[in-house]
């Protein structure tokens, strides 16, 4: 440009010249500038520009924004990038992203794909998009569109797939059908249930409005757009204030505190629900904000009292509706609606559940809980309900006294029933599944931390619910199961036991609540490897459940399934098979309809047979599961891949590595096309295939395949993540099989490092890694070094695991062998025997570790000249060999 001095000069001349007639300017400038002809031209050029219109600077930013944002971000989608989905058309777009209608090639089904546009713009946008995705993954409710899949385009644009909902916005639906007031309330009630479900998972929607609530042709509703939903857990953090500010609220449905960027919570959603109810009842919004500035809107919402819905209804198109119910009912509806949208959050319904209860009271003609507690109101209600001839004042008085008692009792009972119903409504099992086992495995350590915080907070809330032990117990069970998935078994234990204690006092033995809780605790015992107690719990659940519940009750089926699992874990395959068969029977329908539960129980039965060595039966059941899963989930669904992997494992065990390889390749191809070739699930499939290849001695390909799996896992989880360790372990085993002991040692040492970094020195997985490292030394015949490691492992286990844990037993057996190889027979016998006692308590007599222990014990006792003892184990060896 020029230097500041010259620019000042140019400007001064420019301003003076603008005061002159155009014709005089050149002369003026020439006289001012003297010989500097350039300066004259410069100023003249500016003057010409000044006179000319149409500069970019005269346009407004809105048009420019449109040019660069709308145009650019009109996403050009590489169509082949959405896995099995093909884009059909745009469904809608908003500030965050674009939603497309898509069709699944293989199934022909429709879905909605949402992409984040301009993901580059800021991490906040990416976080929010990811948070919506996470929210959907956590929620599992018939009225909330579920998440199907998610990935990232090569250019970094994230996308996810969810259910496509074809329906009309709630208000439009009611208007078109001219729905009655009770009809509207019932639809509204379903909306509340969906919101309640979200609240139970500590999620607030924050943008509830009719356009986000679609009613399908069959009259069911779907709640959409969790784009600005919020996890309650972070509400106390100061940073959240900023995030609160981030929401792009819809003023007509926003609560006063949302305008003020105040504290947002479940009460915010309750307010929006109140506005929606108002609109449904009155046929218009409580406030007309359409021509208000934001500041005015804020004031109206914060200060102005809305007209009562009953009054508003009479003055709108909904006047038909207004006349359809009586004045007293309208009085109740006014109370119900205005309590939900009270300006003071503290004075709204405290929970959506409470709102639902009052809707139910209204529909049943019972007194509202929100109603001021006057006798007149209650008596009035009673008179209307019973149409009793209660005109005489004396009679009224007599009735009133009895009535108060009657209603108090009645209300309590109705309330408990509602609570119990609401508590049942949440499908805990599937929630936890979707959160921790579903498509969400890419969430790294940071996110699991996030989940932990969330759950911890949930626990605090649950603890404060002392007045509602049934709900508290339900929450404790949910949280307990989640802690179990997160690996915090001690806390899971406390919670599940507290839940069980509460339920035992509230419900009878054999009730669905107690039965379900026993099963949950039993499952925890399985995770804790306390199989004996697990079995006792499952049996208690099953025996009492069978006695008290109808034979086909889900709780009974669940307990049966659970017992089957315990027996399988204990290695009691004969009984496991019987029980799993019962579970299959309980889940079967006369039409043999495939269901998720039936497929799962058949899968368990197939596993029982597999472990029992009945490979052909296992295979034939698995073929049935395969067909069922294909029908249930589609030809190329991960669940289909799971069965293929099991079929492969069966072939693998029988030494048919080539057949196993073929199954694994099929499974892998499904996983690759479903998840892409860069996802955790794909890495699982690769690991499986790698194992088969190792045994086929196709070491080169095995190393390539396992290497790929390793690269994926390293990319997703980072080089020091425990998942990476398990692939490293396979590579270590490959190296051992190749006799490449140095490489093997390297792999196992890395495994040790990873576990130490991830879990600290005190974790039992370190024991497993050290134990594998020790096996390298055994291979090298460096028995003292192996021995030293095994002793280290045992010391670790003694600190961390119950004395009779399976892993402890196995370590004793391995140590025994290292001692035996050093001809230290007495010590060897002691270790092998200790291991033998533990393992035989936990596992089937035929497991390989027990066979190894028996063999070693025979050798040790023979060498120690204790023929009686040797004979005992020799006999057992022969016996189990016969059973095999």
């Amino acid at each position: 440009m020029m230097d500041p001095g010259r620019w000042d000069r140019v400007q001064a001349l420019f301003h003076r010249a603008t005061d002159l007639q155009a014709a005089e300017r050149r002369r003026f400038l020439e006289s001012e500038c003297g010989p500097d002809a350039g300066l004259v031209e410069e100023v003249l050029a500016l003057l010409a520009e000044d006179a000319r219109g149409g500069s970019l600077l005269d346009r407004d930013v809105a048009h420019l924004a449109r040019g660069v944002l709308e145009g650019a971000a009109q996403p050009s989608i590489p169509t082949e990038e959405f896995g099995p989905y093909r884009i059909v058309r745009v469904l809608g777009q908003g500030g965050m992203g674009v939603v497309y209608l898509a069709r699944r090639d293989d199934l022909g089904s429709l879905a909605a794909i949402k992409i984040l546009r301009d993901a580059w713009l800021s991490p906040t946008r990416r976080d929010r998009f990811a948070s919506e995705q996470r929210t959907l993954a956590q929620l599992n409710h018939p009225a909330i569109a579920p998440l199907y899949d998610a990935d990232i385009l090569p250019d970094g644009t994230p996308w996810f797939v969810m259910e496509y909902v074809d329906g009309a916005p709630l208000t439009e639906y009611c208007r078109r059908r001219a729905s009655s007031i009770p009809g509207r309330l019932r639809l509204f009630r379903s909306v509340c249930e969906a919101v309640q479900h979200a609240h139970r998972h500590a999620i607030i929607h924050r943008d509830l409005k009719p356009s986000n609530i679609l009613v399908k042709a069959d009259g069911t509703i779907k709640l959409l757009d969790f784009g600005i939903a919020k996890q309650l857990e972070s509400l106390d953090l100061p940073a959240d204030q900023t995030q609160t500010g981030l929401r792009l609220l819809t003023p007509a449905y926003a609560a006063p505190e949302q305008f003020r960027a105040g504290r947002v919570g479940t009460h915010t959603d309750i307010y929006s629900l109140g506005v929606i109810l108002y609109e449904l009842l009155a046929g218009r919004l409580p406030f007309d904000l359409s021509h208000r500035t934001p500041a005015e809107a804020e004031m109206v919402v914060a200060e102005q009292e809305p007209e009562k819905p009953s009054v508003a209804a009479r003055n709108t198109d909904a006047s038909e509706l207004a006349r359809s119910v009586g004045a007293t009912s309208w009085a109740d509806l006014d109370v119900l609606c205005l309590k939900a949208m009270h300006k003071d959050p503290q004075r709204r319904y405290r929970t959506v559940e409470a709102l639902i209860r009052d809707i139910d009271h209204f529909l049943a003609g019972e007194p509202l809980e929100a109603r001021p507690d006057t006798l007149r109101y209650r008596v009035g209600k009673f008179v209307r309900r019973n149409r009793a001839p209660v005109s005489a004042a004396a009679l009224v008085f007599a009735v009133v006294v009895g009535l108060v008692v009657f209603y108090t009792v009645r209300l309590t009972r109705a309330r408990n029933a509602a609570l119990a119903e609401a508590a049942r409504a949440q499908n805990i099992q599937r929630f936890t599944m979707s959160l921790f086992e579903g498509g969400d495995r890419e969430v790294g350590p940071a996110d699991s931390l996030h989940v932990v915080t969330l759950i911890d907070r949930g626990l605090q809330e649950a603890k404060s619910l002392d007045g509602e032990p049934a709900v508290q117990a339900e929450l404790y069970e949910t949280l307990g199961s989640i802690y179990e998935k997160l690996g915090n078994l001690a806390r899971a234990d406390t919670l599940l036991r507290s839940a069980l204690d509460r339920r035992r006092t509230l419900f009878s033995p054999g009730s669905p609540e107690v039965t379900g809780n026993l099963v949950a605790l039993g499952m925890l015992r399985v995770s804790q490897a306390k199989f004996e107690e697990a079995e006792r719990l499952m049996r208690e659940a099953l025996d009492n459940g069978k006695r008290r519940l109808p034979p086909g009750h889900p709780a009974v089926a669940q307990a049966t399934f659970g017992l089957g699992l315990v027996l399988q874990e204990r290695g009691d395959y004969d009984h496991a098979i019987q029980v799993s068969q019962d579970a299959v029977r309980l889940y079967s329908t006369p039409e043999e309809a495939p269901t998720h539960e039936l497929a799962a129980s058949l899968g368990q039965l197939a596993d029982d047979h597999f472990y029992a060595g009945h490979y052909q039966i296992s295979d034939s059941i698995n073929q049935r599961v395969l067909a069922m899963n294909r029908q249930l989930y589609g030809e190329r669904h991960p669940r289909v891949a799971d069965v293929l992997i099991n079929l492969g494992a069966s072939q693998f065990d029988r030494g048919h590595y080539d057949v196993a390889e073929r199954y694994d390749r099929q499974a892998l191809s499904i996983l690759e096309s479903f998840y892409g070739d860069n996802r955790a699930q794909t890495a699982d499939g690769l690991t499986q295939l790698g194992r088969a290849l190792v045994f086929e001695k196709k070491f080169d390909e095995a190393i390539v395949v396992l290497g790929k799996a390793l690269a994926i896992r390293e990319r997703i989880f980072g080089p020091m993540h425990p998942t990476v360790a398990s692939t490293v372990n396979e590579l270590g085993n490959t190296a051992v099989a190749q006799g490449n002991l140095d490489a093997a040692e390297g792999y196992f040492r890395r495994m040790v490092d990873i576990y130490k970094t991830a879990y600290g020195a005190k974790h039992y997985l370190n024991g497993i890694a050290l134990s594998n490292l020790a096996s390298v030394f055994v291979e090298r015949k460096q028995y003292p070094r192996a021995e030293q490691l095994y002793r280290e492992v045992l010391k670790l286990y003694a600190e961390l695991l119950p004395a009779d844990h399976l892993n402890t037993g196995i370590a004793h057996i391995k140590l025994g062998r290292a001692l035996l190889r050093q001809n230290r027979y007495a010590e060897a016998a002691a270790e092998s025997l200790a291991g033998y006692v533990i393992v035989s308590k936990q596992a089937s007599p035929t497991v390989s570790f027990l066979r190894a222990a028996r063999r070693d014990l025979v050798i040790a006792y023979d060498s120690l000249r204790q023929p009686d003892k040797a004979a005992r184990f020799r006999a057992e060896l022969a016996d189990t060999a016969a059973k095999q």
Partner: protein
Amino acid sequence: MAPRNIPTTHGLEGGELGAIVADRRTLDHLFSVTYEELRRLASSVRRDDPGVSLSPTALVNEAWLKLASSPPFALTSRLHFKRIAARAMRQVLIEAARRRNAGKRGGGAPLVTFDDALEQKPSDSEDLLTLDAALEQLAQVNPRQAIMVESRFFGGLDVAETAELLGVSEATVLRDWRAARAWLSRELRAS
């Protein structure tokens, strides 16, 4: 909260914004809000509905409403906030223009565009980039003028607000604007 202490002796990069907006995270939030507002603005233009069409002024006001009570901004005056928002809007638009330009040149993968009704001005993004570069130059010789253009053009501040922000008279704002507009327009035409 007097907004008089705007440093006008150095360029705009870093320092100033950094001092007001404590951390990147806050700035990032501001950008996100700005972006969404800009997009809303853009789509209101698209619908050609005068009733919903937003001005940059309204837009910045809304961003203020949304962020004002958040801790990083709680101590910032409304005017000062607008100044920051204008800066954010400039950067969002420039970044978008940059991307758009790059996209036009690069690529080659088979793409499908779903919006055929689109008739964007191809030169907008280039113009914006030129303007950005010219504003940088202007900031070198007269930082106050650069802030002024940014605040008025990108942030929709009116003359009175701009005068208050810069601690000058309204007449000065009008004079400065006129000269800067002329010079920038010439740079735009020259490019």
